[in-house]
């Protein structure tokens, strides 16, 4: 504490000494950027020498620890009232199953790059559909592997627009009108470290969460809060990220940091993380 006080005194003295000077203060020359040293803290890639010894499955269930939150009704006005009012829309930002407290739309995805299992090959060129349907996006949350194409369709008998703002992805980003029965396609070129919202401005409540991923190892929990990621590499340490719209990085387990956990699976193992309880206070965004 003494050293902090001394330091602060020095800062104050230094600043006040500089007061009389009308000339802009000159900083010391900047240090040149240096290469990071190997093995430093938090990197996104697994150890280079690790080779998978087989394939395994990871599964688990996110459960809301608290009273099931009420979903707020969405206000629709003007033309939108006639077209969207009948759907009695409610907020989708936190969906908790009344029967079992399962939390929908929790993203679980692998951090870092690994080789994928051959069972994913046929999905590599798939188009992943995001529909404008009944004045909402279907699905509300989705992951997409970078080689895949996002196909935005409009199943409503009226127009929408699709506002895509994936940070730093110049090629993918646009805000285009989508007429009824028409579609548009988007190719993402950058992985994101968390999902970003796709919106429609004509219907400002509409919001879908999209995660462009560089591996096919991602999942979104279903209406029971359950996720399954099949055919993940076994025998190497994997780090998974957990994220929800209302919490961002979700530290459901207090031992996690930045919503992350590490696992190493045995070949052919199905590891069930069981019920992962997330306290209500986590969903404060």
């Amino acid at each position, binding site marked *: *504490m003494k050293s*902090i*006080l001394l330091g*602060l005194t020095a*800062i*104050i003295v230094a*600043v*006040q000494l*500089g*007061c009389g000077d009308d*000339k*802009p*203060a000159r*900083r*010391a*020359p900047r*240090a040149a*950027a240096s*290469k*990071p040293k190997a093995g*430093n*803290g*938090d990197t*996104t890639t697994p150890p280079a020498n690790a080779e998978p010894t087989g394939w395994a499955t990871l599964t688990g269930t996110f459960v809301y620890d608290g009273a099931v939150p009420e979903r707020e009704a969405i206000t*629709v006005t*003007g*033309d*939108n009232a006639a077209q969207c009012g009948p759907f009695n829309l409610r907020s989708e930002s936190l969906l908790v199953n009344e029967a079992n407290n399962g939390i929908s739309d929790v993203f679980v995805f692998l951090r870092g790059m690994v080789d994928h299992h051959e069972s994913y090959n046929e999905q590599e060129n798939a188009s992943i559909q995001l529909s404008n349907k009944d004045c909402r996006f279907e699905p509300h949350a989705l992951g997409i592997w970078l080689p895949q194409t996002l196909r935005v369709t409009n199943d*409503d008998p*009226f*127009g929408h*627009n*699709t*506002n*895509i*703002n994936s*940070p*730093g992805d*110049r090629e993918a*980003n646009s*805000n*285009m*009108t*989508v*007429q*009824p*029965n*028409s579609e548009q396609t988007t190719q993402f070129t950058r992985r994101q*470290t968390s999902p970003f919202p796709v919106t429609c*401005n*004509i219907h*400002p409540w509409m919001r879908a969460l999209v995660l462009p991923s560089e591996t096919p190892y991602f999942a979104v929990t279903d209406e029971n809060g359950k996720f399954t990621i099949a055919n993940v590499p076994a025998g190497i340490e994997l780090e998974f990220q957990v994220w929800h719209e209302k919490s*961002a*990085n979700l530290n459901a387990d*207090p031992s996690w940091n*930045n919503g992350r956990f590490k696992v190493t699976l045995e070949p052919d193992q199905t590891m069930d993380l069981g019920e992962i309880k997330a*306290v*209500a*206070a986590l969903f*404060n965004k």
Partner: protein
Amino acid sequence: MFPHSNPRTTRQATLLCCLALATIFTGCGSSDGVEFVLNTEGVPSFETQLAQQSEILASQAESNADINVDERLDEFSDSYFRKTDELAAALEALFGTPDDPARPPQTGLDIDLIRRAAGPTGGADVEPLLDEDGNVIAPGYHLGGLYREHCVHCHGMTGDGAGPTALFLNPYPRDYRQGTFKFTSTQSKEKPTDEDLRRTIENGLHGTLMPAFRVALTADEISALIEYVKYFAMRGEVELFLRAELFESGETLFFEDGTFNGELINTNVELVASLWSNVTVVQPVPRPGGKSWEELTAAEKQESLEIGERLFRNEGQCIKCHGPAGLGDGGQLNYDDWNTQKALVEDEAERAEMWLLPLQELKARNLQLGVFRGGRRPIDIYRRIRNGITGTPMPAANVGGSPIPDPLNPGQMIEPMEEEQIWHIVDYVLSLQYQRGFRTPSPEMNAPNGR
């Protein structure tokens, strides 16, 4: 560089820091505000975040006796201030200060132009930097002070669009730090060209408080300000990416020996630079028939307006926001990108804590007024429709493609809108201001439509 202080003393040290800062600000009038501040738009205050953490940990501790709440909160505080310090230090190392600007070479920014715009009003000479033996380490230079003379009172010292005048303006002055610019000749959501920014500074933005500078400033001076605006935008976007690296991804910008995490920082700087260097300027297609509006016969003009109105109401989807008569009354309450997140926070006090300026609604333009912010030449209107207006709900027109089934008339097909047909909408939009009195929607126009 960032010694890890004893976590238990961190929060007390913060208090002391505040005291020290108070002394600095009251003790030295001339340096007030001449510094860049961190972008904390939409970020809850430290106190709020600490309270949230405390609630989460207390709740988790109920069923888990191993959690030491106090220790975890100290860790949280320590990490929060370390990350904040790292962010400020990295930004200063990359981009300098208002009185000593720098730029990473990858940005392609011209430091001489930046210096002409930066610095105190009236300009200032900066002495060369010498080592102990009197050798020049960095040469001296002149600061031109243009930004602080002409722009800072609205756009702010950090380019945050929150200068002293900002609160009284609607729309607010541009906050450059997201790198988002509305009036561009480039593809939807792309960065503007220098010429786009020049047009805005030279002509101002009609219907806003942004004045025209073409008389007050020379072309060279405007070039300096364009570079400085790009500097703010690149600095601001690098800041946002680095903030995400630190606070979301848990990365570090400095190693324990105080050296840069060069690879991580360069990756982000290069990404932002690439967004500016890779843009596609949209060349307008010729008008249908190749004749300008003035060259059309009266009958041809009438026909163009009729097609334009049909497209405005149907394929173009314009009425969804601009309303059936172009009065800007078609849509529901909306916001630009700078206000969208604010609108999601209902509590006004909470908003005031997280954002510099209060929530501001965005209305679709009333096209009958004939005031167009991005310019009123036909080419300006064409670009707004063709490329959309980045940072706002205004989408880009979806042109081309194959015929689609008409949802209202089963069995019939709708031909897609062709790019050249945008000119008909331009003609129609520009005609709306010349009607006698405000035209209100006729009963026929109110008929269900809404494609």
